């Protein structure tokens, strides 16, 4: 089985540059746990895919190595940061690819490219060998063209790993095999009001249609509020950049990476190496993260964000007291044009409105191809429906996605070969 890997998953001896100039030529001395397990299960690693530098972006444009294009329309982004892996699966180059999802970096590109993407429960897949962006949020996450393939790959890569202290000591994820796989009778699905409200009308319509199919299968739809959703983006960006500022401190030109000597002093070499090696968005986030941890600002920003994170988590705990799943759009919009949000970081951060809350809560969430919506130029582009489950209920997501797969048209549609070209 050919598998593509996001370029932040360590593959011994294979260049793993994380989309960064700084890590050009870096060949890890070891395999990530997920890579080791894939290879042991017979997979063939066919290559490393394009990404936003160190996972920081929602369009895969923040890279030192060019820009990937959406197979449905090559003027548009495939999303990010795992854009390359999404494209590889959507374009039919590989049946499976791994990415990493920190705030939506697999779910959003899956949505924009019309494929399946699952962010497992935090800690369900070992992070050992996943180059860290934000350690308390990062999850190794697969793309596939069917829910069944997701079950297959998760059965291989998930499960206990003594090399990752945050990895759950549990066996690999087993698929649910219900007696009536095509029925969802009794399943209570909470429709996330804030996600729906954030979505463009076409996206909303496509999601509504998919949700109506869920209801036809027997699921009961109820609205859920998730009242702290509006705080999730600032909370996420404070926590993620704080961790990133520390995680990326190691890129200093001492033991690996491309060194720039600078003024000849040690600290000057650090600064020159990082100046030359990091792109604008990475610098922006390192600065933001350094700032929110620095003396005098720590409590107001980082300390507060840790508390709001609790509130966001509790939103879901309350919701899951009533429902079995939460559902809503994965991305507020369909694929946007390349360059459209590149100059506006805040607009780019808003792309993550529906995905960061589940990341903060560590919950499993799946994006499935729900339908299509017309972009402003009339092009029909994929829309993803996001399903969120309680912690460790990853299999439930895939079971519901499987049931929907049979009744939706979107999963069967393939991106046109070279077809996105204008």
């Amino acid at each position, binding site marked *: 089985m050919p598998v593509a890997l996001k370029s932040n998953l360590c593959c011994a001896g294979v260049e793993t540059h994380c989309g960064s100039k700084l890590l050009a*030529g*870096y*060949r890890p*001395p*070891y395999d990530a746990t997920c890579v080791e397990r894939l290879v042991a299960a017979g997979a063939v690693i066919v290559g490393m895919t394009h990404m936003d530098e160190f996972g920081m972006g929602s369009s895969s444009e923040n890279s030192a190595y060019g820009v990937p294009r959406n197979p449905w329309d090559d003027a548009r982004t495939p999303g990010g940061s795992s854009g390359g892996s999404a494209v590889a699966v959507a374009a039919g180059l590989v049946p499976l690819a791994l990415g990493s999802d920190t705030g939506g970096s697999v779910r959003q590109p899956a949505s924009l490219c019309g494929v399946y993407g699952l962010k497992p429960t*935090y*800690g369900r897949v070992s992070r050992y060998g996943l180059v860290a962006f934000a*350690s*308390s*949020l990062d999850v190794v996450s697969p793309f596939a063209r069917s829910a069944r393939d997701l079950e297959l790959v998760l059965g291989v890569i998930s499960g206990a790993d*003594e090399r990752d*202290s*945050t990895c759950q*000591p549990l066996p690999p994820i087993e698929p649910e095999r219900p007696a009536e796989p095509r029925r969802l009778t009794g399943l209570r699905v909470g429709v996330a009001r804030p996600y729906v409200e954030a979505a463009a009308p076409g996206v909303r319509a496509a999601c509504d249609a998919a949700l109506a199919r869920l209801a036809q299968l027997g699921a009961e739809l109820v609205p859920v509020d998730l009242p702290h959703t*509006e*705080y999730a983006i*600032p909370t996420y*960006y*404070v926590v993620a950049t704080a961790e990133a*500022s520390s995680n990326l401190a190691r890129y200093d*030109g*001492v*033991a*690996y*990476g491309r*060194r720039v000597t*600078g003024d*000849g*002093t*040690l*600290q000057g*070499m*650090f*600064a020159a190496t*990082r*100046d030359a090696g*990091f792109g604008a968005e990475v*610098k*922006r986030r*390192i*600065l*933001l993260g*350094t*700032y929110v941890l*620095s003396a*005098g600002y720590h409590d*107001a920003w980082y300390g*507060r964000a*840790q*508390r*709001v*994170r*609790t*509130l966001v*988590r509790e939103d879901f705990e309350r919701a899951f007291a009533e429902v079995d799943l939460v559902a809503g759009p994965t991305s507020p919009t369909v694929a946007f044009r390349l360059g459209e949000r590149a100059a506006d*970081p805040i607009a780019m*951060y808003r792309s993550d409105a529906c995905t960061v809350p589940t990341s*903060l809560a*560590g919950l499993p969430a799946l994006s499935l191809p729900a339908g299509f919506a017309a972009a402003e130029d009339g092009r029909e582009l994929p829309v993803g429906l996001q399903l969120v489950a309680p*912690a460790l209920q990853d299999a439930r997501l895939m079971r519901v996605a499987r049931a929907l797969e049979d009744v939706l048209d979107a999963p069967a549609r393939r991106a046109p070969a070279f077809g996105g070209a204008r």
Partner: protein
Amino acid sequence: MDESPLETLRRTAALARLRLDDAEAQGLSRDVAAILAHFQALAALDVAGVVPTLGGTPLEDVKRADEPRPCMRRDALLANAPDPRDAFLGVPKTLETDA
């Protein structure tokens, strides 16, 4: 703190070992200010009595036995090094003994 936003940015950049030219610093200073202004909603929220979430995992007490594992070959370390010097990693001469 009587620091201008640009001064704050420069101090923060120094902490993060990012060397920025003036244009870059000014642009980033504007960006960060705009982002933080956008994030002000956080400041308005009442978080009194809320327990902070310290990390991503609910686990506790994860430990390993004190058993040696094979080390990595030195060549494997030095293969990625920008300036390998015999058995060592070379860096610009420094007299500091601490950061």
